[in-house]
């Protein structure tokens, strides 16, 4: 039985903002997301309200929850046991939590973790919730490592639209009730070890600007020479190109862009890339 295919294309490395407004679609979609993870040897985590109801919903939809929970392939937790473990929302502690979950899963032989975060707790204004947009942007560094497939479920009925929009921009990908996650129109950012740097794929626009900006802020954390492969970056808007030029102009390191499209080259020049010696742009 297939649920609505909203999250079918989410793979390790993707960080998707899922705007939810229908409980039946929500449960069907979660079930599909969990099944894909179990099939792919990813450890599946659900963190959010009422985990028992989610387990029951999965069971009713044919997931062998007893076996999956027993084997450690699936685990569920409340917000208080995950995001709010310190008694408030602590973005640093939460990022450490995911890093340790990745390490545990990898050492147990899983390919990574598949995380569904039900973010409804944030609508109840727990202390620290104001750090959420910053956290959602910064956490893209962890996603770029390629060991987490993450979906943050935001219930449109519970969040202020303006606040939700801000949160949406921190995610490189998005999904909604009638809009499946589409990798082609999302931004995929992946760590590349040789040459050291990143690979950008898909489309960079205002829907994922804060995600790109947060990753660019940390571009030189591990060294001053970074290669960014943009050969599969199908579209970059004026602001995305500005983020790349600004990173190279910051003085913190050197950027080599490989596989630039003609329109990206135009945008880079438009932002004065010719006057930035720390930026080398190679044509596709």
């Amino acid at each position, binding site marked *: 039985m297939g649920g609505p295919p909203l999250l079918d294309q989410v793979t390790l490395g993707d960080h998707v903002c899922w705007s939810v407004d229908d409980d039946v679609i929500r449960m069907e979609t979660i079930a599909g997301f969990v099944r894909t993870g179990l099939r792919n040897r990813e450890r599946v985590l659900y963190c959010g309200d009422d985990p028992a109801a989610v387990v029951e919903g999965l069971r009713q939809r044919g997931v062998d929850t007893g076996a999956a929970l027993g084997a450690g392939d699936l685990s569920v937790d409340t917000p208080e046991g995950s995001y709010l473990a310190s008694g408030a929302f602590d973005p640093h502690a939460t990022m450490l939590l995911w890093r340790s979950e990745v390490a545990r899963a990898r050492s147990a032989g899983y390919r990574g973790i598949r995380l569904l975060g039900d973010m409804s707790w944030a609508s109840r204004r727990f202390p620290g919730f104001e750090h959420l947009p910053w956290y959602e942007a910064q956490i893209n560094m962890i996603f770029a490592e390629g060991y987490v497939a993450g979906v943050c479920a935001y219930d449109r009925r519970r969040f202020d639209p303006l606040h939700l929009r801000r949160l949406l921009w921190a995610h490189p990908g998005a999904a909604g009730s009638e809009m499946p996650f589409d990798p082609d*129109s999302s931004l995929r950012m992946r760590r590349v070890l040789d040459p050291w740097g990143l690979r950008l794929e898909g489309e960079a*626009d205002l*829907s994922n600007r804060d995600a790109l900006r947060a990753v660019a802020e940390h571009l030189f954390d591990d060294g001053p020479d970074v290669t960014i492969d943009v050969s599969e970056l199908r*579209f970059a808007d*004026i602001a995305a190109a500005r983020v790349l030029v600004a990173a190279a102009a910051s003085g913190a390191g050197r950027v080599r862009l490989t596989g630039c499209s003609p*329109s990206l080259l135009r945008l880079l020049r*438009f932002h004065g890339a010719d006057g930035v010696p720390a930026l080398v742009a190679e044509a596709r």
Partner: protein
Amino acid sequence: MTDGPLDHPGLLYRDSAGLLAAIVPFVRSAVEAGDPVLVAVPGHNLELLRPVLEGAAGHVDFADMTVTGRNPGRIIPGLLLRFVSAHPGKRVAIVGEPVWPGRTTVEYPACAAHEALINTVFANREASILCPYDTSLLAESAIADAWRTHPVMIDAGVRVPSPAYGDPIATAGDFNVPLPPPPADADVLSYERVPDMAAVRDFVRRHAATVLPDDRVEEMVLAAHELAANTVRHAAGPGRIAAWTEPGLFACQIEDAGHITDPLAGRVPPDPTLPSGRGLLLVNQICDLVRIHTGPTGTTIRTHLWAPGSGLSAPGSGGESSGRG
């Protein structure tokens, strides 16, 4: 002869001899004074002037206005200001002919607004900008507009202050006129929110690919995206984009409820420290025409990309035009 540092005369000429008789001394005296010179005129006048000027004067830069200045909105930022900033501390001399007989009726208001706004943008710059008008081929209304957009005119070799010249921003505003509606067979897409942008890009990509080469398709996608993104960011309510082809060009028209209040938007680079506000400048750089009609009730922007070989004629060489034919 002028009050400020800018000298912006309109030159009325009837034939090649008249053009040469005015341009050659203008260029020669600038070169002798050590001023950098740029001659930006349509191809046929370039062929006429280049051999004479290269022989008679020192170094002169040339540009084909029908290429570099195809889009009137690009002439100030892409040609004139660029030339000025390439020669810091120097007075520059420029021959600029943005209005030629092949300009279409859709293009023309952007040309006239451009001429008016030169007076504003260069008001405090050391520059002589001489604008030739071909009286034998241009419509009488275009000559009348030249009198309105130039503080001084050179007519039959005589410099006279123009009695029709007025406040340049107000004059440019007179050319902020409604655009013709898209043709009935144009395809239309509505958009409202950030997640709709991908659909806007796909819409433009799909239509542009039928007439434009791949690189130009992606540039058109970029231009349309930035215009639609302006709707999403600044306008109340949804926007509509229409796409169609005409002989020799691909056209997109965007309509929304926004109001562009800065008459120089897209024609001068904004403060480089500002994070946004450069979209229209980029669109002007990419497109071969950007016409804007804006007011408190909404904004319509038409963009053209020239599609060589896609139709019977290139824009400007036929059809409706501002010339007498």
